[in-house]
């Protein structure tokens, strides 16, 4: 899977310098980790909409081109906060305190995605930001854990709702 390769590449880049890591390697590691998570989520969303059969791959790839980074970030920053604003969560199941509660596997992967996207942007465009190996390696491990946790959460309606929100967020959030 491409996301596994990208996360492995990120780990390699973050550890390639034995002593003090070069900023360019840490910056490329952040970028690889971000795109690992980006392609994973887009692929999961496309599989949910189109189906996971090999014969449906061309359709999945066509749909995948419609995802935008900014919309995905807005959705993920919201899901990452654990609750959604009323206009989005209207009609969804409520918890004891009367709110829609984002399940932990969704909340965690969403929060990590928003964080990685911001850091990817800083890594590529902001030279006033300095990256440390600690941050890069912990973020890669966090992304791997989030994917494993999200994978084991397959049958959940909350998972499907989140994956749909990755492309439908702008319209949902502005109602």
């Amino acid at each position: 899977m491409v996301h596994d390769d990208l996360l492995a590449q990120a780990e390699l880049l973050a550890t390639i310098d034995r002593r003090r890591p070069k900023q360019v390697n840490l910056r490329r590691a952040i970028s690889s980790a971000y795109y690992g998570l980006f392609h994973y989520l887009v692929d999961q969303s496309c599989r949910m909409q189109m189906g996971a059969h090999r014969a449906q791959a061309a359709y999945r790839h066509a749909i995948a081109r419609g995802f935008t980074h900014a919309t995905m970030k807005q959705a993920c920053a919201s899901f990452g906060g654990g609750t959604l604003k009323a206009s989005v969560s209207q009609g969804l199941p409520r918890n004891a305190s009367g709110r829609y509660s984002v399940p932990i596997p969704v909340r965690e992967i969403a929060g990590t995605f928003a964080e990685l996207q911001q850091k990817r942007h800083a890594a590529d465009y902001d030279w006033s930001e300095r990256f440390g190996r600690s941050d890069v390696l912990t973020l890669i491990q966090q992304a791997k854990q989030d994917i494993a946790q999200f994978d084991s959460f397959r049958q959940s309606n909350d998972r499907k709702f989140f994956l749909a929100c990755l492309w439908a967020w702008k319209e949902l959030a502005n109602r």
Partner: protein
Amino acid sequence: MLTDEQRTREALDLRKLKLPASLPVVRIEAEDYTDWTGDDALRIQVVLDESVDVYHVNGKDVGDLKRAIHDSLIARGITLFPYIWLVKQSELDEADDDEE
């Protein structure tokens, strides 16, 4: 009535946060931040103890640490998204050396 800055400081008080034992934290700092889409946010810097082996961290513990910080902010009414950086003091010192 507490200001946002006071509530943020309270939310990040190490004596009150329940953080994973495998990631000992020396201090936490916060500053106002704007993300690349122009949304207001927080930039949180978590300084880890030098003893943390970052080559063998548990991803779940990293997530637990960040969620504890996020939940503590939300509990005090701070709804800005916190972008959290984990760093060691030795890495901050290296950055100072680079600039000299």
